[in-house]
Each structure stands twice: as C-alpha cells, then as structure tokens.
C-alpha cells in the first residue's frame, strides 16, 4: 500500500526585495532539494513584498516541482493577508503557476499589468522576443523613459535571456519578471533558471578549467569574450550589461551555486553557505540617469586600449 506523501511547509514573511534576495534563496531550499512528491503548504500570509527577482526564482522552483510531478494532492496556498501584496502577486501572474495548490482564501479580481512584467517562462529561442520586448516595455510604461533607454534595456535583456537558452541547460527553462518603481526611480529585472550554473557551463570550455569555485566562475563570466561556446557565442552579454549599469549608477546581481557577485564596477564577490542550482541574474537600473547602450559601445575602444582584452578561447 502506497504511503501518504509528506507535507512540506514553506513560509514566506516580510520583504524579499533586491537587497534581501538571499532570504528567498534560503526560503526555497526545502523545495529545491525535494527528492519525492510532497503536499506543499506555501504560506504567504505574512508576506509584505516580493521583488521581481525573488518572484522569478520562486516561480522557477514551483515550475520545476510541477514538471517533476512533485506537487502532491493536498498542497495548500495561504494567500498574503496584505491586500496590496495579493494584488501585486496577481498582477505578476504568480498564482497561475500554483494550480496544484488549493487557495485557502476567496479568489480576488485581477488588475491590469501596467509597468510590471508578469512572470514570463521561456524555454526556446522562439520564445525570447516577446520576453525581451515585454520586459523593456515595462520600463517605458512605468518609468516614462525614452526610446534610447528602452533600447538599452532591450539589448541587455536579450543577451541575458539568451544566456539561459544557450548555456543553462535548465530543464524548466527560464523565468523572468520586471518591476518599475517610479517614486524611487528604479527598474528591476530578475531572470532565474535551475540549470547547470555558470561554473558548470564554463567547465565545457577547457580554457576555463582553472576555475575553482562559483565566485571565480561568475567573475570570469563578467569579463569580455568569456563563453562556454566560443564558436557560437561572443561572450560579451554580461560584460556589456555591467558597463551599462556602471555608467547608469545601477547594479548587477549574479547568484549561481554558492557564488554571489553584486555591483557594477567595484563588485562585491562572496561565497555563501546556501547552494542555488542554476543561475539568477538581476539588474537594477536608475531611471533618472541615462541608459544609453551606444555611449557604452563608444567607450569600448578605450577599454580595448586599456586592457589586454581576451586572449583566445578554445572551442567546445
């Protein structure tokens, strides 16, 4: 006779914004390492705020459990008590990924997504254009920036979501979400996958066989012309994104394995205790400062002169 599935309790409370993203990595640990189906009780009752980066990771984790048929009957979803938080999660299309869980509260009305980019899942190259255009359009809608800024965001996001398809080998694909906060002049995008991680990806290229840990792998990946697949890819996406955010006064956050690198220019790079399979890339841009990708490109000549840029890559 089959035994009853275990119950897995996960409780989210307080805030999981850009600065507190690590709280989300810790919160989803029980879900990340589940080995068999369980009745998941997701308690969002005390949730106050969850930023798009944390939301993208949570959504990816839930999607992965659903993919593996690990969400057993009997799971429950306790909705946030805070009405604004509930409405926000609705706008971000979070609950549509939780069909396997039974909401305890009454359903509530959906509001249109203006200035937010609800969670978008992508698994193939063909699915990328609506993701990048949707994410960058959210910047225009919410933060009233010009077409130049939109183009800059579009370009960077195009590179980042393409990285998921080309390098992550994520069985669940990627999840992206964005939010603009007009009052704070900030725009945040988070992209999460549960693939091999940056270190695992670069390991395919013998040139990077010297990488010893996840932090080193992330830092290496932010350098120009670093890629697992030099024949196919240029390895410039993270580097260009970092330059753009540095000029803008924004920030880049990359979390992969036990590595965490944050900043744009003077990065903080640390090894953390909590392991995250795959990679999360988040960027936070200032919308009251220029976001001009072409001005970044014009600086590349100076960069080339100042640095011994790239020294060749072996093919994979």
């Amino acid at each position, binding site marked *: 006779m089959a035994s009853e599935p275990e119950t897995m309790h996960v409780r989210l409370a307080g805030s999981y914004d850009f600065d507190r993203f690590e709280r989300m990595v810790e919160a989803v640990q029980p879900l990340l390492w589940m080995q068999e189906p369980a009745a998941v009780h997701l308690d969002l009752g005390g949730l106050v705020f969850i930023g798009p980066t944390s939301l993208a990771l949570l959504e990816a984790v839930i999607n992965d459990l659903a993919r593996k048929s690990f969400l057993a009957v009997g799971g429950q979803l306790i909705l946030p008590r805070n009405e604004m938080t509930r409405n926000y999660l609705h706008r971000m299309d979070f609950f549509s990924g939780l069909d396997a869980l039974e909401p305890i509260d009454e359903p509530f009305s959906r509001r249109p997504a203006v200035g937010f980019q609800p969670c978008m899942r992508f698994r193939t190259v063909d699915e990328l*254009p609506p993701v*990048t255009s949707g994410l960058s359009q959210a910047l225009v809608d919410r933060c009233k920036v010009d077409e130049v800024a939109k183009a800059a965001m579009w370009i960077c996001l195009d*590179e980042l979501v393409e990285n998921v398809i080309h390098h992550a080998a994520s069985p669940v694909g990627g999840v992206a979400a964005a939010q603009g906060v007009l009052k704070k002049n900030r725009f945040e995008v988070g992209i999460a996958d549960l693939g091999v991680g940056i270190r695992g990806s670069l390991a395919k290229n013998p040139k990077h066989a010297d990488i010893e840990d996840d932090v080193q792998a992330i830092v290496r990946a932010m350098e120009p012309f670093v890629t697992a697949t030099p024949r196919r890819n240029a390895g410039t996406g993270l580097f260009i994104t970092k330059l753009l955010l540095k000029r803008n006064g924004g920030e880049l956050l990359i979390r992969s394995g036990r590595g965490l690198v944050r900043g744009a220019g003077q990065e903080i790079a640390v090894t953390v205790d909590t392991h995250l399979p795959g990679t999360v890339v988040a960027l936070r841009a200032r919308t009251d400062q220029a976001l001009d990708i072409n001005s970044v490109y014009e600086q*590349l000549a100076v960069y080339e002169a100042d640095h011994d840029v790239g020294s060749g890559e072996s093919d994979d």
Partner: protein
Amino acid sequence: MIRPVEQLGPVLSGRAQAKVLRSEISQDLANGGHVVIDLDEVIAMSPSFADEVFAKLANEIREERIEFRNISPGIQSLARFVTLGRTREQS
C-alpha cells in the same frame, strides 16, 4: 540593398534573427553580388547580433564585398569590439 529596420525594427537584437540576416547576406554574396546594408533608423544593436553580422562576416567586410551605410559611431565601435574578440578566439 538590405535595410534591417524594415524587417526587424529599430533595435536589432537576437542571435536567431541575426542568423537569418547573415544567411540573406551570404546568399547575395554567393550570387556574386556586392551587398549594401543600410543601418539608417537603427537605434541600437545587441552584441550577439553584431557578432553574427560583423564578426562572422569579417573576411567579407575586409574584402569590401559588404558595405555598411549610416552606421552610428556606437555600432561601429561594437563591430570592432566583437570582431576583435572573434579574431583572437581564432588565433
């Protein structure tokens, strides 16, 4: 003359789209033509797009079989950058 803005809009991004354009260029070259690409009205280009159309066609550009018109200083700089990376990768 090829005007990418007409098919792809003012932001040229996506390696897959760039591959389609590169294929079109290669086809014209194979037919013995001199290909002119007009980048007028293009606001920005992604590095991966530039890699496909500049770096991977560097020989043809050097041989002046491909000519770019109305190219902005930013995109010109990006083109040099990605071509440098690929040249070093091959050396």
